[in-house]
């Protein structure tokens, strides 16, 4: 059965009368099958408020991401956390929704400098598993009134409640961008180089390393964004940090954007077989961890703090990683648990929260432990 409520009250009603598990679905671009009736959020669609001068946008959760990006673009603004488009990687179609982005806390390469989706979240409205309508946060940029359930709901994958409305902080689009590219570095040297750039005052807004680039050789990419004069200056300063290495500067903004879309959407893995893992770790440990994984292909983002690994189907990546400071999520594939098992006391808190928010255990049953 498929439900498609047209209002928050209808959605609450649908949850109140459900007699089994419910699968919450935005655009369905993540392509995972769970048991239960599908609850589509697409009926709750539309931007409810957008004030460019206050850098705030409020939208119903089922609003297509494309609609939001177009509205922001018209005012020269954007979602700074750079949500990725998963369709190529997952081999899915459909239109990603803003609710799905928030529910999965989806953030791209710029996360390393500006923060994750959750850092741009100002407020939520949601319906919990008891069909109660709850709001938290609001539409203002600074708000410490009560507990921050906005953060809890971001990244809870629809297991604590169904988002009906989200408010976000947006940022101006920079005038231009440039990339500094370094050729031929080993993974470990690349991570050191990225640390050096990110530790400089020149405001790097992306730092990625591809061990096997388009031409078959390793390339390390650093991004700089801002006003034209500033970008030119900082690109030169960063290039100068790496005297003696094979450094190039890409100053064509379109080429820069294309390159970072390629990183953001992990295009190198598109159409290739195998499972895809996303590993969040301490950057300086990344190269050693990646070696242990024994991947078919790798991509380092966030200065090494994020490893994308494509491995043979069914590989138990967590066992290969052993104990480390971070976590590994199975993004594509089915042989292993999607989410990293949590240590005892934290798992107990997570279970406790889920029990409170969804006592009947009907929301996305089976997802997240």
């Amino acid at each position, binding site marked *: 059965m498929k439900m498609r409520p047209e209002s928050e009250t209808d959605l609450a009603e649908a949850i109140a009368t459900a007699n089994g598990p419910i699968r919450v679905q935005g655009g369905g671009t993540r392509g995972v099958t769970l048991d239960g009736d599908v609850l589509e959020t697409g009926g709750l669609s539309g931007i409810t408020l957008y*004030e460019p*001068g*206050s850098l705030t946008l409020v939208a119903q959760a089922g609003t297509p991401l494309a609609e939001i990006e177009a509205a922001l673009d018209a*005012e020269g603004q954007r979602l700074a956390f750079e949500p990725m488009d998963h369709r190529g990687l997952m081999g899915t179609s459909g239109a990603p929704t803003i609710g799905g982005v928030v529910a999965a*806390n989806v*953030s791209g390469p710029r*996360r*390393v400098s500006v*923060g*994750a989706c*959750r*850092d741009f979240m100002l407020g939520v409205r949601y319906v*919990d598993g008891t069909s*109660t309508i*709850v709001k*938290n946060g609001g*539409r*203002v*940029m*600074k*708000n*410490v*009134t*009560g*507990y*921050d*359930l*906005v*953060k*809890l709901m*971001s*990244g809870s994958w629809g297991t*604590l409640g169904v988002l009906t409305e989200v408010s976000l902080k947006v940022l*101006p689009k*920079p005038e231009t961008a440039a990339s500094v590219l370094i050729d031929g570095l080993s993974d470990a040297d690349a991570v*050191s180089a990225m*640390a050096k750039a*990110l*530790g400089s*005052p020149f405001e790097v807004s992306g730092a990625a390393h591809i061990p096997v680039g388009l031409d078959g050789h390793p390339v390390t990419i650093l991004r700089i964004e*801002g*006003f034209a*004069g*500033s970008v030119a200056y900082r690109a030169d300063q960063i290039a100068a940090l790496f005297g003696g290495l094979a450094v190039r500067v890409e100053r064509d903004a379109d080429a820069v954007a294309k390159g970072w879309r390629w990183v953001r959407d992990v295009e190198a893995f598109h159409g290739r077989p195998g499972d895809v893992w996303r590993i*969040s*770790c*301490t950057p300086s440990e990344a190269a050693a961890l990646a070696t242990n994984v024994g991947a078919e292909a790798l991509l380092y983002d966030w200065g090494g703090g*994020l490893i994308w690994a494509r491995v043979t189907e069914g590989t138990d990546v967590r066992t290969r990683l052993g104990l480390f*400071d971070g*976590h590994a*999520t199975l993004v594509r594939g089915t042989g292993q648990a999607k989410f*990293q098992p949590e240590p005892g*006391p*934290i798992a107990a*808190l*997570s279970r406790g929260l889920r*029990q*409170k*928010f969804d006592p009947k255990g009907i929301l996305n049953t089976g997802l*997240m432990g």
Partner: protein
Amino acid sequence: MQMPTPDANVLSRKTQIVARLQEVLPGDAVISDEMETRAYECDALTAYKCAPLAVVLPSSTEEVSAVLKVCHDMGVPVVPRGSGTSLAGGALPTADCVLLGVARMNDVLETDYDNRFIRVQTGRTNLSVTGAVEADGFFYAPDPSSQLACAIAGNIAMNSGGAHCLKYGVTTNNLMGVTMVQMDGTVMEIGGKHLDAGGYDLLGLICGSEGQLGVVTEATLRILPKPEGARPVLMGFDSNEVAGACVADIIKAGVLPVAIEFMDRPCIEATEAFAKAGYPMCEALLIVEVEGSPAEIDEQLALILEIARRHNPVELREAKDADEAGRIWLGRKSAFGAMGQINDYMCLDGTIPVSELPCVLRRIGEMSKEYGLDVANVFHAGDGNMHPLILFDANKEGDLELCEAFGADILRLCVEVGGCLTGEHGVGIEKRDLMVDQFAPADLEAQMAVKDVFDPAWLLNPAKVFPLAASESRRSVALAAE
């Protein structure tokens, strides 16, 4: 502000409780003498005072865990304390509580420039975190005005902000991990040296939970490379509306200043009398600061000044050197001190949508006349976080109550126009009873359900954040269980 009646069953067992605490802590870490506990009777909301049953000053996570276990077993409420600079009464003790201060836990545990973090014990002051890394060209971004005194512990509990959060965010955006001790003594690591949570974002939940979910003993904080330089400009306008429009235009133009500070006429007059910074006498004054290399600063300031000129400023003042920059900031930085010279004052902290600024300032002016109390406004204009300072006379009968009623009306106004009660100081006891103006019962219930999970017996800082009537049933269950 009402506080719950102290639990007689706890008060009567003071000797046994202190004895148990002394078993798990060194002798000088337990204070029970009434003369000495009085030093902890209030935080920076000094209108409210109450000495705790006892004070403990543990030196390690293990000691914190041992203390909490004792208090949990004996059913004693615990109020955590950093440096006691809360303006909301967050660290106000109750007569039946053990006040747990983390001031002795102030070590730097690890600095790592490659991975850009510092790990500290949470009793360390905010400014000394930056102090530990600045020689190497780094800093810790959140910079509350109280940064010389306030501790990372309180910053995390209140999710504190600062003048530069328009660009760098508040505490929650700069916190990577914590060591936390639950009320039953369980120690856990949440987050760490990596980004984002693998499961639910518990770190985001703990940040801003006002000491009600656990005691935070260690923190991993993001540090950033220091910018090459920074420079402010000062601009004066002849109305709040025009200043507000100028702020919106600057933001829309795509410049992201690190700070946009706003002062109104009463505030300008008071600070001029006190600090003599040479500010123009006008209705509204903005200080806008940008960062970068000298050329980058010039590029951004040129754009900002061009926008400002379109709004017919009565004054535009650029800083040519560090000395002039210092003078531009001087008045703003002494605003609170200046107010303190004139009078007692209450500092509010509501946030409003930036677009509502002129309307809200006008309404505050009208209410000021109705209540017969003066108000000065100084605030972070880029993010709409207001700080109306209401002046009153603590020695005058009824003035405090009048001031509180006026303050409550201002905060209700903030909520009415789409904002909130507190942008960075927290709810504490001060705004506890106004929560019903911002939240429906179901909204508060969802938040209290979170505390049920972390602290089922409601022993950690129980009389804060939620209206007493709303938390009554939970707190009384805790009492009955003893």
